[in-house]
């Protein structure tokens, strides 16, 4: 009797084992999804709305483009699959963003997670993505805090880490033997990390800033600060801020009657039309900036549209002139497309391996894609450009590094 029971148990165990093996086998050969679900957030209101909506628009433009051609090629299934974007509005709030990122991961079960614009709204996604073993595609969250350790779950795709942004700027200042540099910056990770990097590099070149001052991110009155700064008699004034800060700073500079030989601000190179509209051609003339696509163009790309083609196609599709953040959103899509076309399995770790494989041999409309093991973008270095008058408008003249220069620096800038 006992042996009979043992015999039956053996059969039962064998059957269970067979079912398990069969189910595991089924898991490996999962059927392709009907669509690739890409989850992201955008902000329709609040301080990040302008930038966030642009970035989202760029991603949508990419998705519409690939869907017209039947979807993206997914190597793991050896076929094209349409793309669906699931997007929620976080209203520039980190607490709302936290719950919505979690919603995308746990309820919508998205295949690919894309962060909202900027470091603040990306910050809450970084630990959540790691907790749920999801690869976070980070278009523009460049805060140095994110990239402090090796990770398989984070990849910055459309901008270099903010701590490396001012490297060419510092070399440019040292190269031009600018001795008296004043730096004014917003009290946030994005601006302060640029300011600290610039200061460290200048000090390495034996130049100590004559003025180094942080202001609240919400600062909108630069009048008194400008006069204080002018008292240090700088040869160059560097202002690191968000778009709103840059506008307030440049307006205050125009109305103060002060003149500096060299002025640098960040956002004319990213949101050129917005700055022109709010500040005017005259005030922006001879200002230095980091030029980003589409203001600088990359003709030869390995994936996606090149910069000029993107600008034309985007204008045709949306009726808008593309800015950098439209480009950044589109570029995130292009990187995702190549990642899916490279990954041999449809899993988050395989996606990350694909990105590492692509790193260093991929060029898109924002430059060379290269990420390190911490997920930081180190390939797309930003040159220095000057906005020089041309007719009734302004043209972007890249002035540094010399191998990318498209014209000569005007220094000192003529009085406005």
């Amino acid at each position, binding site marked *: 009797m006992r042996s009979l029971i043992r015999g039956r148990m053996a059969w039962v165990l064998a059957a269970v084992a067979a079912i398990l093996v069969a189910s595991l086998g089924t898991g490996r050969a999962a059927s392709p999804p009907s669509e690739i679900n890409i989850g992201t957030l955008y902000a329709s209101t609040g301080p990040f709305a302008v930038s966030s909506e642009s970035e989202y628009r760029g991603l949508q433009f990419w998705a519409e483009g690939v869907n017209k051609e039947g979807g993206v090629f997914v190597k793991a299934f050896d076929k094209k699959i349409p793309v669906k974007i699931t997007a929620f509005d976080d209203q520039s709030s980190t607490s709302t963003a936290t719950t919505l990122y979690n919603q995308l991961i746990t309820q919508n079960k998205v295949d690919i997670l894309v962060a909202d614009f900027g470091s603040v709204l990306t910050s809450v996604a970084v630990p959540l993505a790691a907790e749920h073993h999801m690869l976070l595609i980070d278009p523009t969250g460049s805060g140095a805090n994110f990239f402090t350790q090796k990770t398989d779950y984070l990849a910055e795709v459309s901008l270099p880490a903010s701590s490396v942004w001012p490297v060419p700027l510092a070399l440019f200042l040292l190269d031009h033997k600018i001795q008296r540099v004043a730096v004014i910056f917003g009290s*946030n990770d994005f601006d302060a990390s640029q300011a600290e990097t610039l200061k460290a590099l200048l000090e390495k070149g034996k130049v100590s800033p004559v003025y180094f001052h942080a202001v609240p991110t919400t600062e909108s009155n630069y009048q008194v600060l400008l006069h204080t700064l002018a008292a240090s008699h700088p040869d160059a004034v560097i202002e690191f801020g968000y778009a709103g800060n840059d506008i307030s700073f440049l307006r205050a500079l125009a109305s103060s009657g002060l003149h500096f030989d060299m002025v640098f601000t960040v956002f004319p190179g990213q949101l050129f039309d917005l700055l022109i509209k709010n500040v005017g051609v005259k005030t922006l003339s001879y200002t230095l900036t980091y030029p980003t696509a589409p203001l600088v163009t990359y003709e030869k790309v390995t994936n996606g549209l090149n910069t000029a083609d993107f600008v034309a196609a985007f204008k045709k599709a949306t009726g808008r002139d593309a800015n950098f953040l439209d480009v950044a959103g589109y570029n995130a899509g292009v990187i995702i497309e190549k990642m899916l076309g490279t990954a041999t399995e449809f899993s988050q770790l395989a996606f990350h391996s694909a990105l590492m494989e692509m790193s260093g041999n991929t060029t898109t409309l924002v430059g060379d894609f290269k990420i390190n093991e911490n997920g930081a973008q180190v390939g797309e270095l930003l040159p220095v450009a000057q906005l020089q008058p041309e007719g009734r408008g302004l043209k972007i003249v890249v002035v540094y590094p010399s191998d990318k220069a498209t014209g000569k620096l005007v220094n000192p800038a003529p009085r406005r």
Partner: protein
Amino acid sequence: MPSARPDQIRQPPLRDGIILIVVLAVIFLVAPKVYGNQSLLLVMMTFVALAQGLNLLYGFTGYLPFGYVGFFGAGAYGMSILVLHAHVPAIPAVIGGGIVAVIFGVILGPLLRLSGAYFSIANLATAQILLLAVANPSLTPLTGGPYGLKLQQVFAPGAAYLTMLVIMLLATVIAVYFRRSRFGLGLRAMTDDRVSAEMAGINIVRARLIVWLISAAIAGLAGGAYAWSISVYYPDAVFGTNISVFAIVFALAGGVGTVIGPIVGAILLYALYNAIGITVPQYFELLYGFLIVILVLFLPEGGLSLLRRRGVDVL
């Protein structure tokens, strides 16, 4: 300023309070097993705790703290600094965050000399000053300055969730005590007629300072647990004025001066906030704004006033 109504003065039975606390605990213990978005549930508990902490102050003393988020941020930073610099384990550090908020409460105690809008505006200003202080680059070695803080070494969302649950229940227990005790009755008497209450032997200065510090401690504890749960954050994330605004709206929507009002207000409105945000994000502002306007127009004393009008005694 809320005035005590006869049905509020009647002390509700202890049994109601115990049932409420048990129901609340069961809901939030079971919810993550049914609904996977634990972050949403955690933020919901955070707002219940904050609305309740604000209710203790505004509902029982009449002081409306627009800068209540200052204590929340102080707790978040207190907790984080203890973890990062003193290597204190997370749970004691959360308690430390509450203590830091109480210390700030003591420092800001003189604000209670003001009243009405003056108090609210001064309180808002202090929260902004705290934000600017922690975000100052000169304090980077201590507070992380503008670069924010990263608590990856103690990141444990499950434990942070349970901690927030305990804090929310603690806030509710204190609110039940306020509703049932002579101390709470004294506070409401003080709110209605300060001079008469003082004549009746209530030590007004001591009573309102105690409530102020308890309210600060709840916000500080909630801030500590919140910082633990998100683990990477910038100063704006824990000092944002919208946190105060949400807590005030949720408490007022449910009904201040009660125990259940802020809980109902926070849970319903935050759930609605997310439901609209997730289903029709393009109409989010319109729908949510419309709801708030309806609430203010037709239920200015909070949702629970509907029950009171029908003679139901609300805890």
